[in-house]
């Protein structure tokens, strides 16, 4: 029994990620005395990890059906734009604006899904075109409605969300740690919801089956088109949530929100074991993959890496991590055979 658990966890890609993550944290921690500084290092690091994990989940949602979302960043900008509008033009409270923005993101995602299902054209092409359309549209709205290309109105609670940690959440006399930002709660909720969706809910499981074999899914009574639209809507909604988190972190709602999302959106899920071909997702893996890249970046920055050595080392560590993973896979396969 325990042996089997051991073997299974050895064969799991995520085990490698956890080990690597622990190793890196130990190495950086011993090299950099201030690496565990909760105000300046851990808190902001976790805030970024939280945001990028949600970005990763947004990509994961479409990877589950074997699609890609090239427009993930721009959907974040689109959703964030509605939040900005809600606060600046309609004077809505924080969470009302959040709901409107996420709904707008989900709507644009659903529209993308509808275009894909009604035309049968590859998602790469459609989301690429959508990326262009949104890039133009969002800029136009901002230059039309604002003078400094940003919605700067901050509704009540936004500032707190930016700086508050679990230390500000108390149950009786017991308060949380000041290292964990409150913003991370959004990421945890998103992970729980998406995790439940794909492991337990029929809808999410059916999305995975669509990713695995769309024809068989259709012939098994799965409403394939609806699942495709659903996955894209989920992707858009999560992207908008990530846009919100980024806007809260950086301070205002601008057209450039999400322009840096594309790379991390793939890194997290793929490092974590989500297939690009569809049919398998890993939510924890997405979190681990995102953490890994952010920890590497943070550690290297603190070690005083220059711009160039930062990218070079990041690339090399990624390759090394994945190659190690490959070695581990080969070993665990051998073991299984020689049993």
């Amino acid at each position, binding site marked *: 029994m325990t042996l089997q658990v051991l073997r299974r966890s050895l064969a799991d890609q995520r085990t490698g990620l956890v080990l690597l993550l622990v190793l890196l944290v130990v190495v950086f921690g011993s090299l950099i005395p201030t690496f565990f500084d909760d105000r300046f290092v851990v808190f902001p690091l976790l805030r970024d990890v939280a945001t990028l994990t949600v970005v990763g989940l947004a990509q994961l949602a479409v990877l589950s059906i074997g699609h890609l979302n*090239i427009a993930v960043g721009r959907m974040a900008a689109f959703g964030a734009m509605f939040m900005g509008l809600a606060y600046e033009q309609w004077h809505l409270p924080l969470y009302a604006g959040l709901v409107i923005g996420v709904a707008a993101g989900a709507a644009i995602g659903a529209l993308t899904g509808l*275009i894909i*299902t*009604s*035309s*049968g*054209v*590859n998602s*790469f*092409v*459609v989301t*690429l*075109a*959508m*990326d*262009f*359309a*949104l*890039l*133009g*549209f969002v*800029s*136009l709205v901002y*230059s039309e409605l604002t003078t400094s290309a940003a919605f700067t109105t901050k509704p009540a609670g936004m500032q707190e969300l930016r700086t508050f940690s679990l230390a500000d959440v108390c149950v009786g006399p017991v308060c949380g740690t000041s290292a964990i930002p409150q913003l991370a709660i959004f990421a945890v909720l998103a992970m729980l919801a998406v995790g439940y969706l794909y492991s337990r809910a029929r809808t999410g499981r059916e999305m995975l089956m669509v990713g695995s074999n769309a024809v068989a899914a259709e012939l098994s009574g799965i409403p394939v088109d609806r699942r495709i639209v659903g996955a894209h809507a989920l992707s858009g909604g999560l992207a908008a949530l990530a846009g919100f988190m980024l806007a809260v972190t950086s301070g205002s709602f601008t057209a450039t929100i999400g322009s840096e999302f594309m*790379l991390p959106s*793939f*890194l997290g899920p*793929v*490092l974590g074991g989500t297939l*690009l071909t569809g049919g398998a997702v890993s939510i924890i893996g997405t979190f681990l993959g995102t953490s890994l890249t952010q920890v590497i970046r943070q550690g290297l920055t603190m070690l005083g890496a220059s*711009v*160039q*050595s*930062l*990218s*070079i*080392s*990041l*690339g*090399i560590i*990624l*390759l090394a991590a*994945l*190659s190690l993973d*490959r070695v581990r896979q080969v070993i665990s396969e051998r073991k299984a055979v020689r049993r």
Partner: protein
Amino acid sequence: MITLDARLRSNETTLAVVAVVGYTALVVTSGGSLLSGSAIETFFAYLAVPVLIGLAQLVALAVGQMNLSVGALGGFVACAGGVAMAQHGVPVWLAVPGALALGAFVGVLNGLLVVLTRINGFIVTLATMTILTGLQYELVGTTTVSDYSPVLRDLGRAAIFHIPVVFLVALAAAVVLAVFLRRAVPGRHLLASGGNPLAARLSGISNNRSIVVAHALSGLLIGVAAVVTLASAPGVNQSIGGDWLLASFAAPIIGGVALSGGAVSVSGTVLAAVIIRLVDVARAQFSLNPSWVNFVVGAVVLGTVVLTHRRGAA
């Protein structure tokens, strides 16, 4: 039943018609100024790089791979060539083949990494992209290198009957690539690996070799694009290659190349690059705000996608 071949061909016809109609419309609205020698020269000069990077992506797509490192590799090779000539006095006759070899070499590395680690090519090239971006910055920092080989730069501006030499280079690359993929045995092996890797393997074709060859060719074509950039850009700096990635996908995909591998269209890719170029020209001619251009291009593509690809009996 419409075969894919026929569909590809009809796709190419459509693209050709769109290109001709678009060009004619721009000529008419410009009052004919687009027919002047210098306008034609400008039109084609900036087509060379899009065609080359589109082809570089096409080769990778042919085996079912993606090459995300096109821009980073192109920028790196261009900067390496520029720095070698300007700061280390490497003569141009050595620098140009050197740049091509460097491109191909990094391509081979990409391919070998994919084959040896069996990591998805998407991820491998993502990692090499990051590395190459760093190397490019390492080479030039924030400066623009421009005082290198006048011979090369004259060639970059030279034109034969108003057709720029750089465009002819791109066109020649396209023709050679088309012949290679259609008629040469290694080219067929490459497409077989892309079309059905298992069948290819069972027929004695090494998929690993196909992948390495495809990445090497992709790198080589990027090397050519880098040389063209060296010749025709006002100089090379850290920003070179920054906008190549999406452009490299746009041309082959609009041109009818399958993302899953095995089905390619060189002429479709070239035609798609022409159409994308027409959008630039229109933007300059009508002084359009780039935001509007992006929005309209995106919306029009989405609209046509919906209208022309209605999933019917297919």
